């Protein structure tokens, strides 16, 4: 099988059309299971009480906000080096979802911070760098749309995404490098300091968000493909 078969927008359009509904279905099932485990089965936290349950949204959203930026930058690098059309379209399709997850992470964090820290917002390194990430997403979207020629916007935005990658390790390691109010991570590849049902709920939600992100990116890239290829014969034949 030709490895680059799906690199053409016309073939990828059909593939995305088949995959997207499945991704949404998986996201709904995993999300329902994750919310059930998180809100019903997981025990009340000994220190924070019930308010800790926001982590089932907050932590997966924060993971996705960073991971989607990384994936977007990888697609950007691909579109700049190999000059592929589809990679640039995928980068553009991922950006709104990434911005949404960044906003959700900040928003749920604010509602967790009010009862726990006594403030909706503190200017520590983790929160500030995550806010910068939100502006990087906004800059990416705005720069991509600022040119008459969409290919020009693709390439400028891809370069911006690559410059902004510097921010990702800063977000990730900010709780270690600085003395932040934001707590350090409870989960690592070596083990966890959480109750197993809490971890299960969080991982289920993370996979639900993952599946949702793939689904929205595929659905969005389909509309981008149609818009850009509207003059081609295969789109007219649809």
């Amino acid at each position: 099988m030709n490895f680059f078969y799906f690199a053409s927008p016309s073939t990828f359009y059909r593939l995305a059309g088949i995959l997207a509904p499945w991704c949404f279905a998986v996201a709904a099932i995993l999300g329902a299971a994750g919310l059930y485990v998180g809100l019903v089965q997981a025990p009340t936290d000994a220190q924070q009480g019930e308010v800790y349950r926001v982590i089932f949204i907050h932590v997966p959203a924060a993971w996705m906000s960073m991971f989607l930026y990384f994936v977007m930058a990888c697609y950007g690098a691909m579109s700049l080096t190999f000059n592929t059309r589809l990679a640039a379209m995928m980068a553009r399709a991922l950006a709104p979802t990434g911005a949404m997850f960044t906003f959700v992470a900040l928003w749920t964090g604010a509602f967790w911070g009010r009862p726990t820290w006594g403030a909706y917002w503190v200017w520590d390194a983790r929160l500030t760098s995550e806010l910068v990430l939100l502006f990087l997403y906004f800059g990416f979207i705005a720069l991509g749309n600022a040119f008459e020629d969409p290919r020009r916007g693709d390439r400028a935005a891809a370069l911006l995404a690559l410059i902004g990658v510097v921010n990702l390790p800063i977000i990730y390691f900010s709780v270690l490098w600085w003395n932040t109010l934001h707590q350090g991570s409870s989960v690592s590849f070596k083990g966890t300091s959480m109750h197993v049902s809490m971890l299960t709920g969080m991982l289920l939600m993370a996979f639900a968000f993952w599946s949702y992100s793939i689904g929205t990116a595929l659905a969005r890239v389909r509309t981008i493909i149609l818009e850009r290829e509207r003059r081609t014969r295969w789109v007219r034949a649809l």
Partner: protein
Amino acid sequence: MSAVAAGSFSGAFRWAFARDLRLSWRHPGETMLMVAFFVLVASLFPLGVGAEPQLLQRIGPGVIWVCALLAAFLSLPALFAGDYADGTLEQMLLSPHPMSGWVSGKIAAHWMASGIPLTLLSPFLALQYGLDAGTLTILACALALGTPLLSLLGAACAALTLGARGAGMLLALLALPLFVPVLIFGAGAAEAQSSGLSPSPHLSLLGAGLIVGAMALPAAACVAIRIALD
């Protein structure tokens, strides 16, 4: 351009540096406006937040840094936009000189015309805020290290927005978030000095950022200009 050795980095750097510096010397209005903006905005804060000496000493370093950052930002659109509009940028790209050389030269000239006046002026504003001599010196040092980094970051963003719709606002959205670390460490150095701590960690981080930025960002600006002229 023919007078300097074609094809060498230093030749291209010197040529672009001298040209842009001469241009800003013959049109001093822009630098003057930027300096006036810097002083004016820094003078608005005591009128807005109240003129108690202790409060002013507390917020002084941060306010002066924010004002310097905004003033440096205001001078960014002129860095490439004029040469882009009249086709000079395209001619420079076609010349035998290495692109990284003349882009670095332009960035250095931009810093000479924006960062250096701001750095030299900052002690006078610091006196307005009643900062002591030690804090004032550290503030000027931090600005001397930080403003070239602002010029480098801003040059990459300015090159990205060449020919964009609403380039001014777009440049703000791109550049100001990237300026955040410079602001944090720059203002942090003076804050640390005024609260009796050592400013050297902040200054070291600014210096490290400057070295990394000087290596990576001119290349990013070159790629952005190539995208703009494609």
